[in-house]
């Protein structure tokens, strides 16, 4: 074990996973090497890649025990494909699989029997939820810790060959027999295929799975036939209602609205709320309310934004349609209104996870955004943010794009209620660091606003605007006055998850909760 640049103890070597470097700083790691390349293969001479079942596609792909499979998580909790494919893999007697989806949801708790039986022996993903996450935090059913990667970090790891995908099973709501696919047509349309684009480009074998086989060509082509080995048609790949998981509607909660109002004041005073500003709205209730308040200010002043980035919600799409923003660059649609916008609006376009957030690409939108809203399950007095584990130490969220966007955006606001479930959100040390404190500018809560001491110019601008701020320690005190001081969590020395920073270094670990 060694201590990294933010004082967290991390391993340098992990059995079955190899060597790791400790986190050294936001942009401390210089990229080296070449992009991973996939084998050169020719499609069948007939050009027909269509196979009759998932089982046939697994056999055709050459998947064997010990290999790595991947999926995208655009269906979120409506996903059916992961469980479907792993069931078939298990029935074929294949074991010791590394599961490498872009994220896992509560619905994937159905994988637990396959984890306990050894069909799945390793997992790398962005986030975990529900019973699956609880078991993986309390027990050690895998042969190695889960590797948590941010969206940009995953794209980077795939491109560099650090994460080698043997077979990518990519769900599509529309595909043709040659493998052109999209997520905007069909009864199970889910929107952007941004996460899947990276898998499609770098996996050794790509299987398109659809419940909507359309005449050639499947336009728009989000993922092209040139990257797809096989196509499978199934009855249903997912439930579109499941992509609504989480708060994508404007909140009516007065506390969230109050926080949003304060955040809006901060944004207005920050110096970044200017003509052409770019914005990542986020999806939480308070974040969407900020978008609403900004829209009102834009309506009053005539100010217009540039691009919106990240995931999209119906509300932000409305702002595009009404001319408040000029474009949406979209990796993931969070509701069906956003899916419809992506399908119909010419300036609402898909982007890959690499385009969005890869720190070792030649440009990513996460580095050129002006203002963004971030959430937090905890934030500590050094401004480090946790969005992965809850107050009980159990994994219940995702690294997502949090650290990616925080690294490069000009104004990074964390909005959160100061007390959540009788726990203070400001703590001495967060249970798990996902985003380092130097990437957070301001914390906005209902009981006060704290500016990172590193951001002196911002603090001065807020002062000039008459916005009162306090230290983060003062916020911690205000919270603890109501909640008391939380007891430290009992946990073992066993590491259940490694948290990679976006550049591949280890920023933290998650230990087994006793």
């Amino acid at each position, binding site marked *: 074990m060694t201590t990294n640049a933010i004082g967290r103890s991390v391993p340098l070597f992990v059995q079955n996973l190899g060597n790791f470097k400790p986190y050294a700083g936001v942009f401390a790691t210089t990229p080296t090497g070449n992009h991973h390349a996939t084998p050169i293969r020719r499609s069948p001479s007939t050009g027909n890649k269509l196979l009759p079942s998932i089982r046939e596609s697994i056999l055709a792909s050459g998947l064997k025990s010990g290999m790595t499979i991947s999926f995208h998580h655009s269906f979120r909790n409506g996903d059916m494909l992961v469980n479907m494919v792993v069931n078939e893999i298990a029935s074929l007697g294949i074991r010791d699989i590394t599961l490498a989806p872009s994220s896992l949801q509560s619905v994937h708790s159905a994988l637990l029997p396959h984890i306990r039986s050894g069909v799945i022996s390793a997992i790398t993903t962005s986030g975990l939820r529900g019973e699956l996450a609880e078991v993986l935090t309390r027990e050690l059913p895998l042969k190695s810790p889960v590797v948590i990667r941010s969206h940009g970090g995953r794209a980077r790891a795939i491109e560099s060959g650090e994460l080698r995908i043997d077979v990518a099973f990519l769900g599509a709501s529309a595909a043709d027999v040659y493998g052109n696919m999209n997520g905007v047509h069909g009864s199970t349309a889910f929107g952007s295929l941004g996460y899947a684009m990276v898998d499609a480009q770098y996996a050794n074998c790509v299987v398109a799975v659809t419940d909507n086989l359309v005449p050639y060509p499947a336009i728009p082509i989000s993922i092209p036939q040139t990257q797809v080995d096989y196509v499978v048609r199934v009855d249903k790949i997912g439930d579109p209602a499941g992509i609504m998981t989480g708060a994508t509607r404007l909140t009516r909660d*007065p*506390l969230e*609205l*109050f926080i*949003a*109002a*304060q955040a*809006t*004041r901060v944004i*207005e005073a920050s110096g970044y709320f200017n003509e052409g500003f770019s914005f990542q709205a986020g999806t939480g209730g308070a974040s969407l309310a900020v978008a609403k*308040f900004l829209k*009102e200010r834009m309506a009053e002043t005539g100010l217009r934004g540039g691009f919106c980035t990240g995931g999209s919600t119906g509300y932000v799409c409305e702002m595009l349609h009404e001319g408040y923003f000029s474009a949406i660059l979209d990796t993931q649609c969070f509701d069906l209104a956003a899916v419809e916008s992506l399908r119909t609006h010419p300036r609402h376009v898909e982007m890959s996870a690499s385009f969005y957030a890869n720190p070792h690409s030649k440009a990513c939108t996460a580095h050129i955004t002006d203002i963004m809203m971030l959430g937090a399950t905890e934030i500590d007095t050094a401004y480090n943010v946790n969005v992965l584990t809850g107050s009980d130490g159990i994994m219940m969220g995702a690294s997502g794009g949090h650290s990616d966007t925080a690294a490069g955006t000009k104004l990074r606001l964390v909005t959160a209620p100061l*007390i959540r479930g009788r726990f203070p959100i400001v703590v001495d040390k967060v249970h798990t660091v996902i985003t380092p404190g130097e990437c957070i500018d301001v914390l906005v809560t*209902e*009981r006060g606003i704290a500016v990172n001491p590193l951001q002196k110019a911002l603090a001065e601008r807020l002062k000039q*605007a*008459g*916005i009162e701020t306090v230290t983060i320690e003062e916020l911690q005190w205000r919270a603890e*006055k*109501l909640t008391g001081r939380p007891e430290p969590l009992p946990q073992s020395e066993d590491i259940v998850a490694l948290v990679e920073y976006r550049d591949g270094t280890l920023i933290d670990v998650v230990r087994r909760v006793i």
Partner: protein
Amino acid sequence: MLMSKRLRRSMLFVPGNNPALIIDAAVFSPDSIILDLEDAVAVDQKDAARELVVRALQTLDFGNCELCVRINGRHTPFFADDIRALVPARPHVLRLAMVESPEDIIYTDQFIDHCEREAGLPSGSVKLMASIETARGVTNAAKIAVSSPRLIAISFGAEDFTHSIQSERTAQGQELLFARSAVVLAARAAGIDPIDTVYSNIDDEPGFRADVKAAKQLGFAGKSCVHPRQVAIVHDVYRPTSDEVYKAERVLAAYADALQKGTGVISVDGRMVDGPIVAKAQRIVDIARAAGSGRGVQV
């Protein structure tokens, strides 16, 4: 400078049996918080809610908010227990529901006085607010308003009032006009604050805003709020314009200058300035200060 009077633009009702809402109430910066032991609490929860409110008064920091407790009416079995439990916890104000006569206030005043003595508190520590919610109460408003030195305000309750006059509440509010005006006149004549009734449709922000404007126009000092979102709207309606603030500040500056110089006659822009104009100017400046210097965002 004149003594500033406490502002009561917004009085936010908070159910006395909901700890989460009690803890968060001050976040919205209402001028007054009314911890409710009456309508918001079911009969079988009265004891628990009373205990919760007492603990909240003893332990929580409500910032600059005035702390009121709406106690159960004089003729309910909870009235005496409410006062006995609450007085030692020293809320700023007890708001008595269903006041219909001066005797209701006089009786309550005496009982509070007794409880203050038992708690070792100076007489008059806990103030009173009368809720007038019936035809009889409105008819007696002027007498009620002067029935006790503890009284700092009388509030109007439209829901029970319309029931008592066998009418229905309408958006136009014609059925309330006389009663609202009677309460304003009674309170203003007694030198205490008139507080307007609640507006129950929390989703109708335009309707609420119009209702607040009407209340302000009628002379109400403030409005009872049933939802935190309403607080900012009330403050926005009551916020003076920059022109009003500018003129008020000039009046106060002239008044201060005259006091310093011992001048008898004060004039600003050729207009005579007397006591009421100075008092009005002070009120405008107080409200402007309370509204804050930052541009409020409507929630």
